[in-house]
Every structure is written in C-alpha cells, then in structure tokens.
C-alpha cells in the first residue's frame, strides 16, 4: 500500500490522580514528551486530533480545541473525538488521503475532578435506559459474565476455575504495572485478594476486577510514510485500523456474551493489515474488567468462544502470566492494562499505543517481551467507547 502512516513518537503522563493539575498541564506534558522524542517543533504540526470522553462534563470545558490552541499557540485545524483510537483513525485517513504529513494525536481525561458523580455520568452517557433502571457501570460486566457462564454451561469445578482465571487476569495486570513507571498502581495483588473482594461484595466481580477512574494524558505524532523515515529510524506503521458500532442499550443487543463491535473491527483491521491473529505478538486490550479482557481474547480471534479462561498460564503474580495460544505464548496488557495502568477514558488508547510502540521498538525496558524476534514485529490494540458500543482495533508493525 502506498503511504502507510506511521507513528514516530509517543508520550504520556503518569495515570492516576492529578489533584493539582489542570487538564491543559497534562496534555502539555504528554505532547512535550512526544515532541522531544522525535525532535519536532510545534510549527511542524499541520493538524491536531484530540480526544476526551467528557471534559465538558468533568471540567466544564466545552471547546477543547480552543485551549489546545492557546497551549500550543497554533491556529491549525483541530478536531475532538472521544477516544485516542478514534483520533488516530481520523488522523490516519487524513494522512493517507494526502491532506497532511504531520499530525498530533492526543487524549486527555480528568475523571477525579468529578469523582463523586462520575459513575452517574458514565452510565447516563453510556447506557441511559440501564441507568434509569438502576444499573451501575459494574453491573453490565457482571451480567455479561452471568450470560457467559450460562451460555457455555460452566458449572461446578469449571466455574471455580473460571473465577480463578479471571482473578489471574487482574493479578497479571497488577504485576505487569509494577514495571511501568507511568502506571496508576504499583502494587502486587494476590488471587486470594481478588476472590475475597468478590465475596465481600457478594457479586460475581469485586473491587480488583475493575479498572479505576483516572486522570491522565497521552500523545503521539503520526506522519506520512515518507516523513516518518526522515524523522526516525524506527517508525511504527499502522498496518490496519478499523472501528465498529453497537447499541448503547446493552440488554437489547443480540449477543450478551461478547462484543460484536470488536469482532467486526478486528475482521476489517486484520484484512487491511493482511494479518491473522497468530501473527500478532503484542496485545493491548481494553480490560475495564477482567471479564472484558477474557471475552476480548475471544472476540479478537485468539481463542474459541468460551475458552479464553482456559488459556491463562504462567506465574501471574510474578510477571510470568501469558495466554497460551496454539503452543505460543501471548503476552497481553504489558503496561498493566486499564486495571493497573489506569483508565482515563479519553487518554487510555494513547497508553495502549504507547506500550505497543515501545514493545515493537524494543524500548520497553523491564517490560520488554523477549520471544523470538520475527514475531515481535506486529502488535494490536483494542479500545472501546462505552460498554463495547464502539470498538477500535489498530494493528501496528515495524515493517510495512
């Protein structure tokens, strides 16, 4: 394909609670990190795509482009999306169409500024009828797990194994986050902790099954293929990117055990990249809950429906957790995932891309995956808006 847009630099802030910082400060920090990495000046940018899920609600910022313009002192075209993956997809199309050569893609969220009302906001924006009926952001995940257990007839010892496998997902992600300097949590947890939190909650999932609310920002620079080669020796190309959409109203969807949007987005992205799931060796999925990570492994085509929980292997407590797929080790959410890295909605996708970028370039430090080098050339991220209402799959690779 002609002109594969490529990521030439990435930057991010630590995720967590940034009590003293304004949203502008966070995006500035992320952008400066990315621009330093590729030695780019503000004036080199031709357009900006910024994402935030609900800054207008959390911080009463209605025209986000305006503050970005003030911050960068740029008057170039700027657009706002809801997620970094959406911004990246838009930027990708613009560059490929030849409109721009250098674009800044960034995301920001400041959820803790409205911590006391954020769950009402999430529900009302994400699934209003469920909200009116008394639903919570956690409930849909638990209902999906109930549907999964019933559909695949998981009972008795197998049900215990499934529950432990889900706990392992959380333990694995927490362990991986310890080596990620930007992660929200640097705390090892145990399977027992995950299980006892569920017991205390008297629900299918507990505190350690869910991603937190977070503040944070992320940024990346996307350029045309020609420009990328001039800027860096190690560009990371976007080989495939696609999105798909499903109903807001979770109960009304045809399939309550999986995300149809992921399946469609993955199908289209892998077709575009000419890759099959087995070609991918670095994977960042959207684990807003442990259940979401599990079903996403199936939706993306790595495991047959109803089997992902049987594939979790290794010592999850000590950075050794992986999915065994066709005899190969697949490492997932090396940055700690949303569970432990954090989940500032509008910036989360940037952290996922950040991790894949670092892994593909061999710059992930202590987190670096060391399998055979040939398979290290491609990675994939899955990002959601809402409860699978929108799914974005981006397949990245070092070689076109």
């Amino acid at each position: 394909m002609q002109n594969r847009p490529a990521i030439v630099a990435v930057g991010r802030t630590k995720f967590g609670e940034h009590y003293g910082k304004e949203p502008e400060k966070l995006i500035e920090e992320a952008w400066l990190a990315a621009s330093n990495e590729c030695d780019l000046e503000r004036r080199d940018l031709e357009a900006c795509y910024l994402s935030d899920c609900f800054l207008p609600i959390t911080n009463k910022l209605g025209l986000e482009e305006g503050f970005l313009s003030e911050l960068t002192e740029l008057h170039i075209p700027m657009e706002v999306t809801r997620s970094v993956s959406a911004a990246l997809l838009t930027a990708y199309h613009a560059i490929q169409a030849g409109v721009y050569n250098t674009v800044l893609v960034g995301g920001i969220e400041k959820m803790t500024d409205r911590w006391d009302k954020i769950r009402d906001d999430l529900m009302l924006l994400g699934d209003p009828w469920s909200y009116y009926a008394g639903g919570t952001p956690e409930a849909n995940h638990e209902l999906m797990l109930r549907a999964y257990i019933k559909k695949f007839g998981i009972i008795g010892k197998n049900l215990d194994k499934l529950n432990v496998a889900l706990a392992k997902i959380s333990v694995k992600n927490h362990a991986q986050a310890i080596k990620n300097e930007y992660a929200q949590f640097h705390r090892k947890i145990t399977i027992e902790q995950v299980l006892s939190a569920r017991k205390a909650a008297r629900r299918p999932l507990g505190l350690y099954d869910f991603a937190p609310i977070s503040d944070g920002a992320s940024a990346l620079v996307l350029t045309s293929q020609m420009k990328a080669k001039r800027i860096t020796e190690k560009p990371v190309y976007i080989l495939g990117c696609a999105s798909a959409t499903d109903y807001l109203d979770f109960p009304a969807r045809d399939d309550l055990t999986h995300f149809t949007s992921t399946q469609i987005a993955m199908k289209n992205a892998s077709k575009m990249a000419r890759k099959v799931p087995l070609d991918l060796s670095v994977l960042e999925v959207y684990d807003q809950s442990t259940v979401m990570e599990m079903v996403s492994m199936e939706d993306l085509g790595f495991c047959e429906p109803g089997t992902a929980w049987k594939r979790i292997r290794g010592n999850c407590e000590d950075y050794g957790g992986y999915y065994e797929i066709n005899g190969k080790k697949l490492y997932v959410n090396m940055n700690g995932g949303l569970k432990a890295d954090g989940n500032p909605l509008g910036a989360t996708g940037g952290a996922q891309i950040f991790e894949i970028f670092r892994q593909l370039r061999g710059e992930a430090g202590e987190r670096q995956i060391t399998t055979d080098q040939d398979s290290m050339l491609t990675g994939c991220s899955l990002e959601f808006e809402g409860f699978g209402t929108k799914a974005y799959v981006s397949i990245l690779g070092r070689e076109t």
Partner: protein
Amino acid sequence: MSSEPIERRVSYLGDRLKACRCKICGKEYFEMRDYCGNCGRKSFGKMANIDLFYEKGRIELCTLINEPTNKFKKLEHYVYGIISFHNGKIRVPGRLTDQIINDGEVIDFSSLEGREVVPRFRRRYQVGGSEVVPTISLAFTLADEYYPHQGYTIVQPNKEYNLPGIVGYAFYTSRFRIKEGKLERSVPFIDEDAVTAAVEAGKLSLIHSGVDSSLVGKVYVGSESNPYAVKPIASKVAQVLKLGEEDGDVQGVDAVDTEFACKAASSMFKDAAALVSYSKSKMKYAMVIGADNSQAAPRGCPGGELDVFVGYGGAAFIFGKYDVIAEIEGWYSCTSDTPDFWRRDGEPFPMHGGRFSGEPAYFKHVRKATTKLMEKLNLQAGDVDYFITHQPNPRFPVKVAKQLGFKDEQYAVSLQVTKFGNTYSGCSPVGLAAVLDVAKPEEKILITSYGSGAGSDAYLLRTTSQILDKRQRQKINVKSQAENPFLHYVDYTTYRRLKLGM
C-alpha cells in the same frame, strides 16, 4: 438538576413500557420506532405499537447492586438485571423492587434467573425537593410472590342498567407492614408514593372491570399526600393507564385531583355516576381513585399521635351504566366548617384537634349523613347487609356503627384499619372494596365516608348478579393482600425511612 423535556420523554416510554413490533418480520423493539431495522424502508407505517405494561417478563440475568449510582443510593442494595419479554424478543434492563436486602445477605443469582416477573409502576430514583418526580415501570416483582400477574382483557359491554353504579374496582397496597400490638399497617416501599398507588389501583380496576380504558372519560384522584402541591396525580394516571381516546401523546380524558381530607375520593362517586348518566356527555365510564401514603409526624413530635394509625394504599372504582356490579340507589352529603385535622401549605405533616376530632367532627358528621340517607330512602339499620364507614382508628367505626344501630355482622367485613392502617382518602373505599369482595347479588351496602374539615358522604349501593361473574378476574383483592404469605414486616425505624421515600 433535571430536564423537564427529558423527564417527560423517558416517563412517556418507561411508565407504560411502550414497545413496537414490525408487522412484516415480527421483530420487536423496546421504545417506539417508525421502521424496523431488519426490513428497512418498506416497514415504514407497518410498525404496530404494543406495550408491556400488562405483560409478564422473565429474569434472564441478574446481579446484586450494593454500590448504586448517586440517584439510587436510598435503595441501598437491590437485584438488577436483564428482563426479557415475549420469549426473549424484547430485553430491557430492570431492577427487582419490594426487596430489603440486608448487609451480608448473599443472593443466589441462578435461582432468580428464569423466574417470571411483573412490571411495577414506581418512582425511578431520588431527586431534589423542587424537581419533577421521575417514574418508571422498569421495576419488577416476582410473579409468584405478593403481586401475581394478571392479564388485561377488554370485555365488550353486555347489559345496560337503569341506574349507574360500580362496574369495576380494586385495592392496591404494598407488601410491607409494621405490626404493633394487634394493629398491622401497610408501609410503602421506598419507591412508592400516592401517585404509584393510584396508578396501580387504577390498573387493577381496569383488569377487574374489563372496561376498555379508552372509554373512560374522566378520572378523579383524591389524595392528601400528593408529592406535588401543584400538579395533579390524575394526569399521571390518565397518561399511564391510557384513559380516554389516545391522540398522539395526549389522552382525550378529563383528569382532576380532589381534596377533602379522607373523603376526597368518596365525595366524587356521585359526580362520576352523574356524569356517566348524563346522556349528552357521551361518557361511558368514569374512574375515581382514593390513594394516600398517609402522612404523620414522627412519634413525640407535634402531630405524632397520628403515626400510630397511618397506612398506605389506594382504591379505584370505575363507574358506568354497563355491566354494573353495584348500583347507586341514593346518597346524602353534609358539610360544616370544622377544622379538626389540617395541614398548612408547606408543612410536611398534618395536625389535628385532639379530642375535638371525635364527637364534634367524626361522629356528628357520620351520624348525620347516615341517618339522613336512611330517612330519605326509608331504611332501617336492619335493612342493610353491610355498613362501611371511615376508619381513622379501630375504635371509632365500631362506636359509630353501634350508635347507628348496626350489628357486628353488618360492619365487621369492612373493618380494614387493623390490617392496613388508616389509608386516608383510600380508607372508607378500602372498606367498600372488602365488602364488594364478598357480597352476594341483591345485597344492600351503606357506605358513609368522613373527611376532616369536615363532612360525610353516605351512599346506598345494591349489588347485581354480575358481582359474582367479575370476581374471578381478580387475583389481587383486599383479602389476598391482607393475608398474603409474602408480607414483609419492618421495624419502626425502617417504616419511617420507607414512608419518607426517595
């Protein structure tokens, strides 16, 4: 902060659980749609409106909510899940209501999944005191517990009677009780109020009567615990029950709230009867509802002495000339300005005149209306099969009945205050419902209401043979609610909390 237009639209769909079905492929949707997603443009104009209001659903999946979103905090813990209708053709989110789940209580989700449920009309969530009260029917109870499912079948009118009368009725109260000594009183669940009781009672009366709701031309709702100082309960009843001819989102019905303490509803029986008898009105049926979440200050506070007797519930009666179960043979009303019980505007709880609420108020008016009506109709106490009067406490109705010469067997059936408490505007109507539940054809029923302020309405009713025919349509009656195996008893603190509502 609430938005009135959003609130109105959510209520319009959610109160009645409006849905639609594609006439081409049969696919069903919650909410209204102009076309089907399967059939596309060719289905324009081919979508049939349906609703799930009288249907039963099934719990498909459920979980426990113990950390609700802010607006549901007062519900504390509840079961929430996905409810399916029509064998899974429609799935909606819903919560189980009427359950108090204690700290530490473990719910077995798989034992609930698959169970049948009935939609219940409730408050949606809590809002500030100055906001519109949101409602919804995405609250459900198990169909094999307190409130069994009853279908609504419209029955074509058969016989026209000479006199107007009651063609259908129902009593609704919650499954919660407080028991103190020998007295049991009904307590609303935290998402219930006078509005939800009025709607539920009206719904059950439509089921009992078999009357086509579009033929109901007027609805009166008597209450003294309307959550609004200004805004009728009757408009909610009319909209949710689709009373009168439906035209877009407007119902061709006259709806009005009435207030005269505990006789606000019974006062309107004759107005409803007169309306359906007036040939120019072309009105076949009129509905009268008395519903209250009877208010009382907490014990120990001024007005707190009422707290011992207050209950919760509503009774609805449909009046007409077709298929009458009890004809109205006559009435007498009397009024004097006697402020024995009152609630000033803006005050949360009523006050009353202590010992003066007895003889110069209750007894004088009940006796006056009853004796005047008996004189007018040339009746002796012994000619009447049942006597019903207002029941502010267990003692007053017995005393006044004896003063009037009625015997225990004539008034015992009607005494419901020891089971439900004083349901204010619904109080003497509950007594009437209890009598209609057991009366045989050709029996004479004398009901005398009492409203503080003060006044009484006395009516003489004579039952017809149809009272037996219609009884079998009614699974939920006064007795089934009084002697229900699924009653839930609460302590005083819980009672005050539930009564205060969301």
